[in-house]
């Protein structure tokens, strides 16, 4: 089916990710497996215009440094299974802590939507969020919703739609690191690029290699290793 697109939901635990998932998919959810990992993630379909969005509810995590199994599962899905769009759900009442995860996702993949949830609670607490400034700083759409009250869904779905049709292009603004780290990245990035092509973000992989992320290293050699032999 050419009209079916995969949309992954990432986010910190307890940000209402599953509420959003259930509200969008209704009760028509079912658990599905995907290749390589024997864990079941909740999946469900949303029909929008002439398209089907296949939503995948990733485990809630605080970061994606593969400290725990959950983080690895979420990270691997975003990086290797390459969903058409990754929606990062943030809690409007504790954005400062939540942005950390969003910034990591922006390094990993291009088509990202930042979805700020619990906006009703935040407004009650006197928190006013200017999504235009945030969109501008991050380079990807920032949308405010309230999953509990089903507010902001049309905007969210429309944005997903416009990303998959190419009407919007996401240009994630990368985090810049201290000069010595940037120097190291510059050193290693061309070689990474040569090795993995454009299958993964070379900058991100370089950063992970510098950080000593052995789990990612193993995952890359496992997934790309055989292909290289035949090429």
């Amino acid at each position: 089916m050419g009209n079916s697109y995969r949309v992954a939901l990432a986010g910190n635990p307890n940000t209402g990710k599953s509420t959003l998932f259930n509200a969008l998919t209704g009760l028509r959810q079912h658990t599905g497996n995907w290749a390589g990992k024997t864990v079941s993630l909740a999946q469900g379909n949303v029909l929008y215009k002439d398209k089907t969005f296949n939503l995948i509810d990733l485990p809630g995590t605080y970061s994606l440094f593969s400290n725990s199994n959950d983080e690895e599962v979420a990270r691997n899905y975003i990086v290797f299974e390459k969903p058409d769009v990754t929606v990062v759900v943030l809690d409007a009442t504790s954005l400062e802590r939540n942005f950390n995860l969003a910034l990591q996702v922006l390094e990993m993949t291009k088509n990202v939507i930042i979805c700020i949830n619990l906006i009703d609670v935040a407004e009650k607490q006197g928190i006013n969020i200017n999504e235009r400034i945030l969109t501008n700083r991050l380079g990807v759409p920032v949308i405010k919703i309230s999953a509990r009250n089903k507010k902001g869904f049309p905007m969210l779905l429309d944005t997903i739609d416009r990303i998959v049709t190419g009407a919007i292009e996401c240009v994630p603004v990368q985090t810049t690191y201290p000069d010595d780290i940037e120097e190291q990245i510059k050193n290693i990035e061309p070689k990474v690029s040569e090795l993995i092509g454009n299958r993964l973000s070379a900058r991100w992989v370089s950063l992970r290699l510098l950080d000593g992320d052995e789990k990612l290293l193993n995952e890359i050699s496992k997934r790309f290793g055989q292909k290289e032999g035949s090429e």
Partner: protein
Amino acid sequence: MSIQQLYSEAQQLSTAKLRDDIVQRLYERSHRLCREGIKYTESRRDTRTEKLDAIFTSPIFGFPIMLTMLGVLFYLTIAGANIPSSMLAEFFGSLEIYLSAFFTFIQAPDWVHGVLVLGLYRGTTWVISVMLPPMAIFFPTFALLENYGYLPRVAFNMDRLFKRVGAHGKQSLTMAMGFGCNAAAVISTRIIESPRERMLAILTNNFVPCNGRWGTLIVLASLFMAANFTGGLKSLVTTGVIVGIVMFGIIVTFFVSWVLSKTALKGVPTHYTLELPPYRKPKIFDTVVRSSLTKSWSVLMRAVKVAAPAAILTWVFANIFIGDTSILMYAVEFLDPFGKLLGLDGYIMMAFILGLPANEIVLPILLMGYLSTGSLTEVDSLVDLKQIFLDHGWTWLTALNMMLFSLLHYPCGTTLLNIYKETKSKKWTFLAFLIPTVIAILVPLIITQTVRFFGWL
């Protein structure tokens, strides 16, 4: 150049403080984003959450409140499930008459009627009428507590105890999952980052009675432990017994964790940050509908899928004779001396062995075993049920031992499978089977021998 070579090259370039620098930059940027993009018009803090936390996580009230919540949850489940359970049983019972009549009408052979009605139909409807009502009450109520934000407070309260036995505080969250289903809880141990503490959580999870064992525990507690009480008091006593059983399971969890962290899984518990989210009023209707519809339904389907073949198998075993003894009886007689040692009997041991695929079917198999040997009474009410047990020499001690064995014994097949998938180790999966089994044998053995020694029975 391979990725491995690149990795070692990167490692030579890299410095030890790189991760710190990265994380610091991410937080700096998060902070800047918030400063630029967010305006706080009024600084109204969430004081309600703070006030509630002062009560729920207080050193004095924390534990009593937790115990009360647990008690209330069980009481609601037990008292509320009573009537719908007997109504369902009655309904299925009356339907059985028509079914039997239909089989007589089409002149089906006796064995077809036996397999399909006495085996399959009775077995599965029993599972449905005993399991469905408690699930339909327990899951939604539990989900409401979960959505409200109470569970992380439980983890907070329990943290010190878990630390002391060398385990991880988040283990109380995976244990809470275990009340629903141990197999799911084993997967949920992924929230524990340290492999050592995660293994502890996996190995001890089945000491929390899962939904499949609820039926057994509730039925036995109300038949034998609360036998002399009536009405509301009966449910209260039953609840007390169940809370006691659950507490015992928790004590065993602590004990096993402590022993393991001193021996096979040596180590010091890691530090972690536990987020205490604000209390949120749950969407009551959504939560109730979702958890009763989806969760109860899927657990029930699993129960029925396993119960159906097991029921047929048991009926067949009970009705195929070698000489003048059925296959089932051979097994029962073989297991009987060992069962008697534990204050149980051969039928009970047989039921637990055949019940390996799912705990839900242990009691139905046991009943079918008892009923297959002569007195073919119709089980219309719990009174009849008790008579069946009494006819086979049951006392309160038998009931207590069976409850304890059910609480402590090896995890069900699905759980074991999940443990293997999660640990990817045959050794640890085997230990997850062995440790509970040994404990489940020792505890009733000690109790029975003590009771007999002092002549209390």
